[in-house]
């Protein structure tokens, strides 16, 4: 009998305490922030732009395309403060759990992004796979764009950075919070994908170069391709090289299988990054179809020209990073930490100086496999 009373008591107690859910927020009461833009306004205050999903548009039912996001820009003292003041504009609770993209505005990035990073790392709701990019111009403009395809500009740009970057080598890939956090902890410099707004469309191409978390310059889309060769983060690419007219004019190689491995070698005081690149591809465009039949010599000429061109391009991007920006965007410090942990521990603080002396040794091997459906 006692037991029964106890069980009843237990059930009643559990029902009363457990079912009262403090943390319950109804799904329609959530303001899902899918994009966050960070700018400086004219008075140098932080201006945050939130892209908030309008849930009705995401239901997936047919019908005419209605507005699927709402943007709001707020000036605030701190991130938490600005986010909280969203509550005075909406009847719902801001939720970062589905945030896809964080955009830094150019002006803000030039002043330095360090003060915002802490919030981004500490906020529990922000996932570590949230993509990050820097806008050439205002971050606000990027988020305010109405994309032609896809429900929101933040989601489109996130897709480009995470998925399309596999096929398009102009996009600087894999920049999520995790990447940023790792580099931030290590004190390494970073590069972030660049977004350009031109004629009401956003293009993701190239990269912003950050030194000490301040934007110091840009790499173009073309340069990012070569940067990705050094990083080993590239699998396919189209590459065009100029040749004399009798050899075909400009020819394009569809490199569908690229393997690039970098390994640092330290000998005495000299640090060399040995880059070994193996490219396998087909020729799929020839400007001036040569009248001569395809010979081994011609193939050899193409191969040599491609190898030469790729080597030169990689070297010039490396020199730009080393001598102009003086910024290690090539993850060489990460490689050295991996291969020479002891050396790294001793020389961590002098890395900025050491980086200036790093040499690049590129070894390219191009294998042209096929030439398409017609003879040249």
């Amino acid at each position: 009998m006692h037991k029964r009373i106890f069980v009843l008591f237990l059930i009643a107690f559990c029902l009363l305490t457990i079912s009262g859910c403090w943390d319950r927020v109804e799904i329609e009461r959530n303001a899902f922030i899918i994009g966050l833009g960070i700018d400086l306004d004219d008075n140098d205050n932080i201006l945050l732009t939130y892209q908030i999903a309008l849930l009705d548009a995401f239901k997936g039912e047919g019908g005419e395309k209605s507005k699927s996001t709402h943007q709001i820009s707020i000036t605030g003292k701190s991130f938490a403060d600005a986010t909280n003041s969203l509550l005075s504009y909406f009847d719902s609770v801001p939720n970062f759990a589905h945030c896809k993209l964080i955009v830094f505005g150019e002006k803000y990035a030039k002043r330095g992004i360090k003060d915002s990073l802490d919030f981004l790392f500490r906020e529990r709701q922000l996932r570590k796979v949230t993509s990050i990019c820097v806008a050439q111009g205002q971050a606000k403009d990027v988020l305010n764009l109405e994309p032609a395809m896809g429900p929101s500009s933040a989601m489109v740009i996130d897709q480009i950075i995470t998925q399309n970057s596999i096929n398009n080598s102009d996009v600087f890939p894999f920049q999520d919070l995790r990447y940023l956090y790792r580099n931030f902890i290590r004190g390494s410099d970073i590069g972030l994908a660049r977004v350009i707004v031109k004629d009401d469309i956003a293009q993701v191409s190239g990269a912003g170069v950050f030194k000490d978390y301040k934007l110091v310059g840009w790499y173009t889309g073309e340069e990012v391709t070569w940067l990705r060769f050094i990083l080993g983060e590239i699998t396919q690419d189209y590459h065009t090289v100029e040749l004399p007219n009798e050899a075909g004019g400009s020819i394009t190689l569809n490199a569908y299988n690229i393997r690039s491995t970098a390994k640092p070698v330290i000998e005495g005081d000299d640090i060399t990054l040995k880059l070994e690149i193996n490219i396998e591809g087909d020729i799929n465009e020839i400007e001036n179809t040569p009248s001569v039949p395809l010979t081994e010599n011609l193939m050899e000429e193409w191969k040599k020209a491609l190898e030469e061109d790729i080597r030169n391009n990689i070297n010039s991007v490396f020199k730009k990073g080393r001598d102009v920006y003086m910024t290690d965007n090539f993850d060489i410090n990460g490689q050295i930490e991996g291969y020479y942990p002891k050396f790294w521990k001793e020389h961590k603080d002098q890395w900025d100086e050491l980086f200036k002396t790093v040499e690049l040794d590129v070894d390219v091997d191009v294998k042209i496999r096929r030439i398409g459906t017609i003879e040249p």
Partner: protein
Amino acid sequence: MYSKQDRLSYTQYSSLIISTMIGVIVVRLPKLAAVSAEEGAVYSTVVSGVLTIAIAVAIAVLGKQFHNQTIMEYSTLILGKVLGKLFGALVTFYFIIVASVILRDFSDALKGLLLKKTPLEIIMISMLLTVVYMVTNGINSVAKVTELFLPIIILSLILVIVLSGSNFNFVNLRPTLIPNFRLIIKGIPDLVIAFQGYEIIFLVIPFLNDHKKVIPYTIIGTGIPTILYTILVAMTIGVFGLETTQNLNYPTISLAEGITFPGAFAERFDIFIAVLWILAAFTTIGNLFYMFSFTTVRLFGLKHYKPFVYILAPIVYILAILPQNLMEIRRFSSITGYIGLGVSIIIVGMLFLAWISGGKRERKNA
């Protein structure tokens, strides 16, 4: 001595050990290893695991020798009445502290991770009530619950590890693969704490159906967490790098956050892991609470522990609510770790004593 229905199978024995070992700590383990052992993180985890296996085997050997009694009885046989009781009190004290530390640790992490606005007290009380409900039904239901939950817990851990493979970068792991004995040793005291839970062997051996294969099943029980933990630490460092791992508060959850399936058809794996981690915490706290109530009752020479469970639950609650902040919890739990190590060392000492004078007693008790 014990009724038929209280008997346990070997599988239940092993799963009791595993589920007590894999608990709250699992969300923080890589950080713990990276902070305490630095470059020696992976090796240190292996060494601590092997050490744990050795201690567990020692306890099991002792338990096998006195397979009709729990630690509370045979400690008085070996150490004498007074010392034995003192030792029993130490063990009891240890279990109550561990149970409360883990309860608090769990509730704090859960509040931080999932339930921001739910009062801490409610999380703790509801967890404790569930635990009490499980424990009042005896060792058999405890064992059955762990047997039921364990595959889910292990599977979820394996899933996190395997699915993170695409984020793994071997260069990150390289610095930790050069053996550095100073760092490996440095990590052991902190890491052994992460492996605690094997102490359940003290008490469950007398409940076993059969005692012949206790040693191999002890090795299985302690070996599985060792393997899982080592791979988890290696994987986390491979994904994040050592320095980042040191700075993440819940590296395992962060690891799960990084998992994306192609085409984003399933995301937010971290929530799934956080929920399954509650199961792991539940079995750990449940088993510890069972041990605590069991040893308390035995300490006072009583037979039935069930009524005492209700009295003891508030004690655990009060002890758990005492620490005021994160740092106090950390200090509390490292003190616990050292008590645990002390208890284990005494056990090994006792084993030797028993070894010396063992033969006679065994015949007497058989």
